[in-house]
């Protein structure tokens, strides 16, 4: 399993770095805003845009993981070695989770150290921060799962249209439900559906 994870990380380094880049930019902006005293709404608007970039980066990672596999027939070779398709898929998802954690955890730490710079400073800040962090992590993972799902398709147009539509769906869900338990539940359902569908397609189709 470790070999599979290492392979995924090495192969998709650029796409793993993409969400992390948005995270680093967000941390830099938050830190500079704090030092230079930039009004919070400006940094918050930037943070919102960069979060969208983070989601897009995660979606790209999922799409590229599956698309390069299919186009390069990587799993044909892998599944003739001492691994199962389930293990290949699990390694891929673990890399997605790892990327998400690497991108989100520093953001949460920054938000804790510099209150009000990434999310607005309100009463019961820690409670809000926890809700926002979990919702954003789940939304990010939903984007990644959608990326996996559409990436397994061979038709590039479908990949593009599918990604845009489903990303819009995720964004709308968070927008309508806000950061809270409702949004989390919906996102969890979306993640489960996307992952199950991708897994079932990946393990059952011709390679």
């Amino acid at each position: 399993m470790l070999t599979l994870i290492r392979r995924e990380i090495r192969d998709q380094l650029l796409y793993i770095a993409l969400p992390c880049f948005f995270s680093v930019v967000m941390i830099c902006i938050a830190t500079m805003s704090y030092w230079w005293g930039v009004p919070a709404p400006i940094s918050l608007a930037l943070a919102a845009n960069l979060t969208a970039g983070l989601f897009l980066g995660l979606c790209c990672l999922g799409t590229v993981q599956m698309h390069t596999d299919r186009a390069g027939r990587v799993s044909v070779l892998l599944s003739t070695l001492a691994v199962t398709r389930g293990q290949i898929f699990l390694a891929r998802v673990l890399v997605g989770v790892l990327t998400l954690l690497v991108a989100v955890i520093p953001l949460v730490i920054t938000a804790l150290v510099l209150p009000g710079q990434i999310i607005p400073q309100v009463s019961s800040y820690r409670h809000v921060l926890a809700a926002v962090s979990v919702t954003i992590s789940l939304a990010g993972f939903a984007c990644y799962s959608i990326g996996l799902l559409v990436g397994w398709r061979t038709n590039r147009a479908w990949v593009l249209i599918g990604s845009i539509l489903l990303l819009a769906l995720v964004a709308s869900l968070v927008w309508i439900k806000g950061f809270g338990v409702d949004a989390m539940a919906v996102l969890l359902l979306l993640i489960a559906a996307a992952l199950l569908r991708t897994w079932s397609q990946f393990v059952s189709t011709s390679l």
Partner: protein
Amino acid sequence: MTDNPIVIEELVKYYDGRCILDGISLRVPRGCIYGLLGRNGSGKTTMIRILLGLEPPTRGRTLVLGEDSTRLSANAHGRVGYVAEGHHLIQSYTVSRLIDLCKGLSLHWNDEFFGQLMETFRLPTDRKVKDLSTGMRAQLNLALAMAIDPELVILDDPTLGLDTVARRQFLELAIDVIQRQGRTILFSSHILADVERIADRIGILVAGKLVVDCSLDELKSRVKKLRVIFPERTPDDLYLTGIINQQAMGREMVLTVANWNPQKQAILQIFSPESCTEMPMTLEDIFIECTRPAGAVVPQESEV
């Protein structure tokens, strides 16, 4: 350990509404080198892909090393060496990276043997797989498949695209490698001379049906090509079971018959032929007779 590393039971595969494999049943015993023959599109690669779990069957069941192909465990995968038609290696990797990956994902890795193979093949480890020639890719694929000390080796037209010299070199090494440990081999090829050299059992697929499944010697002894000359004209009512091909011209008839036996000879004698001579047949002749569009089906081993 199972006595039959490969078992296929009533395998049917439809693809886009077209029947690719039509009720194939086959058992490959341990230690056997099984040569699978068939024309382009006869279903050889599909059958192999189903065996390896790369393709789902429409109906029927295939077992590899005692496990159902659709649910092969990592352990079973790790005991099968596979050289695919077209050599499915990760093109963007360097040879050394691909070797590291395969080594990391194998149950056993015979470093010494792999080193010997790499030395023989003289493969550049710093080059990308996509920059290798077809022959080099075939050699790399064979070396990777053999380094895991597989119990079962599946070679799907491994010499496809190789020139004569490279093909000969590949086969010499493959034979050497294969014969070392008495492994079970399933070998598919278009090149009948290759199969004739290696295989001790033959299967011929024609339009998705396995029309021959017996040992090479048995196949040669069972299928007879006869030139029969009659006193006047060839009879219209000569009915024999297992006629694969029949061509008549004037007094002469050329008959290719499966399962030739004294009873069939006695039936032929009723028509009092002037002469009946046997024409020698190579595996290629038998193959061509069996795969002729109008050719009859050669009975399986169990039939009389």
